[in-house]
């Protein structure tokens, strides 16, 4: 199933008030020290484009619009579930697993950014 862009975008907008988002903003402990700084910023600060430029753009070039080290992502025919799963679990030797690094809300924000890309 593919989430409509509107729903994905809404999730990204609503995310700051999601309960697990609050957990992500707690001070880092041994178990959560991998949380990125973005998760500790202000609640309305999940900016998919900014997150993409911080981390994902190293391989998915031109903001995800061009193939580089990683594949082109704009207009991808992959399902939302596939992309979310790939972000979380990565691919051995090709892409790191970000499931323990990004919160679900951050991953949804990145997905919304990808879905909003023009070529």
């Amino acid at each position, binding site marked *: 199933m593919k989430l409509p862009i509107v729903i994905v975008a809404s999730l990204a907008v609503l995310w700051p008030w999601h309960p697990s988002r609050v957990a992500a903003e707690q001070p880092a402990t041994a178990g959560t020290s991998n949380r*990125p700084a973005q998760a500790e910023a202000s609640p309305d600060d999940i900016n998919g484009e900014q997150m993409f*430029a911080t981390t994902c753009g190293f391989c998915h070039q031109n903001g995800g619009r061009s193939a580089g080290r990683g594949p082109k992502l704009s207009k991808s025919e992959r399902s939302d579930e596939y992309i979310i799963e790939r972000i979380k679990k990565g691919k051995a030797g090709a892409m790191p697993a970000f499931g323990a690094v990004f919160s679900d809300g951050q991953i949804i924000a990145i997905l919304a950014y990808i879905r909003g890309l023009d070529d």
Partner: protein
Amino acid sequence: MAYYGRHLGGGIALAVAALLMASPVHAQDAAALNAEAAQNDWPTHHGTYKSYHYSGLDQINPGNIKNLEIAWMHFPERATRGLQSTPLAVDGVLYYSGSYSRVYALDGATGKTIWAYAPELDEELVAKQTHSPYNRGIAIGQGNLYVGTVDGRLIALNLKTGKPVWDTKLLDSKKMTVGFTGAPLVVKDMVIIGAQGGEWPGRGPIFGVDGKTGQKKWEFFTVAGTEEAMATWGNDSWRTGGGGGWMPGAYDPETNTVWWGTANPAPLYDWSGADWKKSGPRPGDNLYTTSVIALDPDTGKLKFYHQELPHDAWDFDSAVGEFVMIDRGGKKLVVHANKSGYIFVYDRSNAKVENVWPLVKNINFVKSIDPKTGELIGRRDLSEGKAETPLCPAIAGGISWNSGAYSPKTGLYYRIGQEWCQELTVEKTTPILEPMAQLNIGAQFKLVAPPDGPARGHLSARDPVSGEKKWEVTYKAPPLASVLATAGNLVFVPDAEGVVHAYEADSGKEVWSRNNGMGHNAGIISYMAGGKQYIAVPAGWGSLVADEFVALFGEPYKSMPKNTGALIVYTLRQ
């Protein structure tokens, strides 16, 4: 030994025997390590401490190279991202590492396995890493072989048996994401190894470890390693500055100095533009990133340094590049290649700049670099938003992380250069204040052809001090492997498509080539076993620079596997 054991008391006998046995061996090792040419052995990553990647062997030469054929091959397990390491050879045994820090000891004449070692790694951590699970080399000393791991350990193996001697955890890789991929360097009793860093927030340490015990003796932070350096990181940005020293340096025994190159600061790209000294994510010069540093190997104390690119805003590390130590006109010099495509020549006693010259044609991140002072002239400090014209060279650099070669016979330095640029949009990102398992890039970019033609690579033979060019060969795609020069008047270049080329060192005339069937991004060496000269070439494609080739060059890279590799060893047919 048996004689003394029978006639002297236990402890004294052992001590005397140890002296008699160890001293000549130690002296021989030191002489081999300090020589200009690697002879029968290839005892350290860069050939010898002088970093020439030059073999003094001359059995193979332009007159007989037509008879150079494959002697044997070895296929490593789990060659994820191919093979990226430089083998070593000692006493007719070849040692090399593959991905996941797997190590093999092979009979140098036959390829027969003597021992193999596979460490148990934190696979969950490996899955989170970007620059992983490859390994780029090993070191040998004190009867041990040393290898770093991507989960933050340095391991010593018994050279004869491959059994672990010690296993020391140096980095909290779970927190920092980074570990060790570069080869260690053995200096006297110390094993020195630098951590990954650069785009990962951290302080990029280099470690000195006791080779016999595995005990950490010192740690030097390439980010704010001194009070002076800390003052060059505004807003406490030193806490997540990046840095690191992810390729091995070299050692100058005359001054007891280790030379090491350091990586870029994080984020790679900075939106502060010309105001970088006061604003942006890391205001200031950001010492000691993108620098060459001179350390005391016994204490880890900084002796002196030169920051090649103050406030590097382009990801042009100094961590790449060998340290070619040459004496010229009464001066003791060291030549070091920076990722930007500029070659720096220093006085070995103090890192004072003696010359700077460009290896590549397409450079616009600065207008020039003052050859007398090293000062950057006409810096191109980008602000937030899309750069009006592409930045040259691209993030993959004017030079890559593998090494060039220098022949004392021809007096020429053989170095691969890369011509490419990138479109770039700098993004203002949220400042990162604590180390974390995430890259810190700060831009969108896309590699493109340079203004003067297609993206390409070249090997040029130059005077290492002046940069004067004697000959050049151009490649459709940049070769990414190290270069080997030999006393047989040969230069070997393993290329990206899979072909190994041999050129006459003095003329550049191609005299031999063979297709290994997959791209090269590792180190090529030569050694002697059973009275015969061998050339060992690891083949196997898949580095982060190699990953760029699909979009730029299409086939054969699009279909080239990135999870396989082979060590291919050549010798003269009888």
